[in-house]
């Protein structure tokens, strides 16, 4: 392009010197803008959590103590491992609306995003108004006014957290989802098992079932309205389906031997269960309407802990058919299951990531048990936890977080980590030991 423009221009130089010069300059400018523009390629970021400032919301009216919205939001963001919220003590100012914001202050503090807001009590309701800003662009990314009943402030705080998270990450937040887990404590000399449900931050826990016998393996239905679990209340393991809204419970599997490890199919119409009615632990599909069974594994070894692939085609499960527990995937493509873990002699309890690209599991290494994941395409394995007695991984519905049970001192606790191996967050201790966490789907 430059050449074709220059040739006639130089030919006319004597007569049209200035014109030719202009043409030449224009050609060069065109060349720089159209052809030669520099492209810098950036393929990785800081690898660190995003600095974000959540300013304490201004409050007016009598609000319940301990349910400060901004604190809940800050904790939620921190729990993800993707954000490092600025502590309120370090803030130079405490704006409660966009009009009061001096972006320079927040830039000086190295903050990338800023959330400001205020809460007002209006009778039995509260109204929260909040705004999210990009500190560098000085642009508002989000602005909303929400109201809720005065005893539902936490729900509002989680809702705001979800909105903020989605605006910042492009993925739905999971702060309004719930956790199911089992606690065990001694009560008047006898054990007390409790099936509980709480917010993702462990707050607002409620007991849904209490038993002197073990309760195990809670599993959420895809719509989040039912739980399946194993209860030993009859003295032997049986699988129940529990309707949360009504408390109505149904035994769906009570075969001789094992009735364990329920997992809902993506369509919610069947469960994967482990039964040993044949004398050996095998995985079956249990149709919830007809209660009919379809055997999915057939091996003299232990086959258990089945989980449906997120798209419903095939399952992952644990089998010790190779001599020790390893993870296998059975799908419609292959007649026989393929083993997907090889990193150590003990890999069990598989859980797919929501996109089906990873499988998470309990992995023994150096006599400790950790949570690890393997990328199914590459087979690359990554150990995610440093704690040593880790069990029962359960993946958040957005795939970004994972909750698992581990030991902290003599206590069994639940810990949330980022699925990329980021910051860990231990849920506030409930009474006694906590085990068997299950992360709910997004609730609607």
């Amino acid at each position, binding site marked *: 392009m430059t050449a074709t423009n220059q040739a006639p221009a130089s030919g006319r130089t004597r007569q049209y010197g200035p014109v030719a010069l202009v043409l030449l300059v224009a050609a060069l400018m065109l060349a720089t803008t159209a052809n030669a523009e520099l492209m810098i390629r950036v393929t990785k970021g800081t690898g660190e959590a995003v600095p974000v400032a959540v300013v304490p919301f201004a409050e007016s009216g009598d609000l319940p103590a301990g349910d400060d919205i901004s604190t809940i939001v800050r904790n939620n963001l921190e729990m993800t491992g993707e954000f490092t919220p600025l502590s309120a003590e370090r803030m130079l100012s405490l704006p409660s609306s966009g009009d009061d914001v001096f972006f320079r202050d927040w830039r000086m503090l190295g903050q990338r995003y800023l959330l400001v807001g205020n809460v007002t009590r209006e009778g039995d309701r509260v109204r929260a108004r909040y705004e999210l800003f990009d500190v560098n662009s000085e642009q508002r990314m989000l602005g909303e006014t929400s109201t809720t009943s005065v005893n539902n402030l936490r729900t509002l705080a989680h809702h705001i957290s979800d909105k903020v998270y989605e605006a910042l990450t492009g993925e739905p937040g999971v702060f309004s989802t719930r956790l199911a887990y089992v606690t065990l404590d001694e009560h008047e000399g006898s054990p007390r098992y409790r099936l509980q449900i709480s917010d993702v931050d462990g707050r607002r826990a409620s007991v849904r079932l209490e038993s002197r016998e073990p309760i195990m393996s809670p599993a959420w239905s895809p719509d989040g309205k039912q739980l399946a679990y194993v209860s030993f209340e009859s003295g032997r393991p049986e699988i129940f389906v529990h309707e949360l809204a009504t408390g109505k419970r149904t035994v769906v599997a009570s075969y001789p*031997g094992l009735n364990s490890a329920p997992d809902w199919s993506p369509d919610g119409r069947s469960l994967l269960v482990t039964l040993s009615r044949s004398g050996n632990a095998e995985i079956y599909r249990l149709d919830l309407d007809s209660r009919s069974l379809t055997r999915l594994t057939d091996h003299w070894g232990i086959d258990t802990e089945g989980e449906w692939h997120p798209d419903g085609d095939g399952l992952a499960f644990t089998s010790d058919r190779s001599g020790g527990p390893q993870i296998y995937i059975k799908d419609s493509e292959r007649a026989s299951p393929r083993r997907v873990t090889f990193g150590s002699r003990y890999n069990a309890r598989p859980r797919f990531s929501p996109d089906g690209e990873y499988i998470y599991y309990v992995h023994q290494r150096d006599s400790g048990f950790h949570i690890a994941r393997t990328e199914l395409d590459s087979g690359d394995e990554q150990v995610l936890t440093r704690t040593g007695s880790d069990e029962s991984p359960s993946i958040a519905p957005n795939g970004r977080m994972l909750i698992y049970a581990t030991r902290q001192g003599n206590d069994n606790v639940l810990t949330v980590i980022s699925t990329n191996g980021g910051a860990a967050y231990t849920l506030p201790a409930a009474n006694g030991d906590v085990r068997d966490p299950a992360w709910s789907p997004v609730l609607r």
Partner: protein
Amino acid sequence: MNTMMKQSAFALVLSLGLVAGCSTTGDEPMTDEEMSAVDQDGGASVYGGDGDGGISSDELRDEQRRDQAEQGASGDDAAMRRITTFYFDFDTAQIKAESRDVLAAHARYLANNPDVDVRLEGHTDERGTKEYNLALGERRANAVQRFLVVNGADRGQIETVSYGEEKPAAMGSNESAWAQNRRVELIFR
């Protein structure tokens, strides 16, 4: 090629033997010969236990028969039957050598008292995963059940249940606690 065929043939024989070992846990009682076949063919491989378990088991069977004869003569089974908990190594369902005399005494007792039922509760230590441990506990209970049946108990007298790691006998995260928790308990009614 030749090697592969040999290997395949060996694998076939092995798996047949193992499947036979598993499938015989059905209603028909397992014979002594079958039990010994399971141990010889698959003991180490199937349950992943120590390799010397199989070897010592032959010696023990001789001892066992001798003891059985002596015990039958002395009528000292009652003392042995006070032991109702039997321990296992990590991630195995292999009955330990020292458990066999006692289990045999229990079997004779059951055989002699058809109206007595026993419940076998299989347990594991806390390590590993809950559901897998539940299956492992069941396998331990089943192993004991088979032993009892082989040694004269009626299958109808025996109920098995696995609690996996849910009901540890000893608290703590150490080898001593774990060893006490990898167990099958016999509960007579």
